[in-house]
C-alpha cells in the first residue's frame, strides 16, 4: 500500500488524498491579466523535484508536498503556513474597478 504523510493526520493511504496542482505564488493583484491567466491556467510541468498542493479528503486539510515526480517519491510534506503566512488582501483591487 502506498502511503503519504499528512502533516495533520500522519501516515495515510494515498487513496485519501487528492492532488491540487503546483504551488506557485500568485502575481500582484494589479499585474497584467496575461500574467494572471498564466498563473491560473498554465502549469510549469517541471520534471524533478516539485512543490505541490495536496488535500486530505477525510479532514478537508490542504497541505504542501515536495515530490520527485521522476521517481514518484514524496520527499517532504508540511503545512501551508510554512510558505503562506499572511492573508492576501484584495480590497484595493475592488476599489479600483
Amino acid at each position: 500500500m502506498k502511503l503519504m504523510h499528512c502533516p495533520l493526520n500522519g501516515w495515510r493511504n494515498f487513496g485519501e488524498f487528492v492532488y491540487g496542482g503546483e504551488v506557485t505564488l500568485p502575481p500582484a493583484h494589479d499585474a497584467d491579466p496575461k500574467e494572471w491567466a498564466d498563473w491560473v491556467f498554465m502549469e510549469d510541468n517541471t520534471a524533478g523535484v516539485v512543490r505541490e498542493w495536496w488535500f486530505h479528503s477525510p479532514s478537508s486539510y490542504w497541505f504542501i508536498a515536495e515530490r520527485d515526480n521522476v521517481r514518484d517519491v514524496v520527499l517532504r510534506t508540511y503545512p501551508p503556513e510554512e510558505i503562506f503566512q499572511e492573508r492576501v488582501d484584495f480590497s484595493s483591487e475592488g476599489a479600483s474597478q
Partner: protein
Amino acid sequence: MAVTPEHFNRRSFIYPRLIEAGAEFAEVIDAAVATRYPHDAPALGLVDLSPLPRTGIKGPRALEWLAAQGWPVPEDNNQAAHTESGGMVLRLGNREAFVLPAPRGDGETVHTLEQSIPGDGVWHMPRRDSHAWFLLRGEAGVDCMAKLCGVDLREAQFPRGAIAQTSVARLNTIVCRDMAGATPGFHLLADSASAIWFWDALLDAMQEFDGGPLGIHEID
C-alpha cells in the same frame, strides 16, 4: 402510544432501517432514538446516535473561544476531551472542533453553545444534518474496524480519546475511541447522505462477530 420516528420532523438518517429491525423508540429532545431491539443485546453492537444534537465550530479563534466558555479543549489535534457530563470536544485541527453531547443527555448544553457562537473568528459549523453519528460498542470493535479501515486502531496505538480522520468502508469518517459504559467503543461520524449505506456496511462487517444493532438503553 408508542413513540415512532414519524412523530417527529427530525428523524435519524437511517430510521427505516431501525423500524425494520423492530426497534423501540424513546423521545430525546426533538426526535426518536432507538432504545432497544427485540433480541438480546449483542456483544458487538452498533448504536444510532444520529438524532442527538451535536455541533462544530471553526475559525482562527475557535478553540480559544471554546476554552473560554468552560469547555475542555484538548492540547493536540486529533484528540478528544471529555466534559463533566460525559460529552466530548473533538479537536480536529488548529482551527476546528466538533462537540458531542453524552449519548444519554445534555443536548441543551450543545444548543446553548450554538446560540452563543459569536461569529467573529469563531464560526458555527452545523453538524447535526451533515454527519451521521454511530457508536460501535464491543471488545471485538477493533477487529471489526480492521476490516474497514487502514488506520491501526488497537488501544496501544489509539488510546481512549484518540481521533482518526480517515476512510472507513471507503467513506470519509471521523473515528474517536471512547468507553461506552465499561465497554470500549468507537464513535463514527460520517456523511449523512451515505448513512444507510454506512449502517449496512458496518452491520455486514459485524456479522462474523455476531454483531447487531444496539439501543441506547442497552449501553451499560
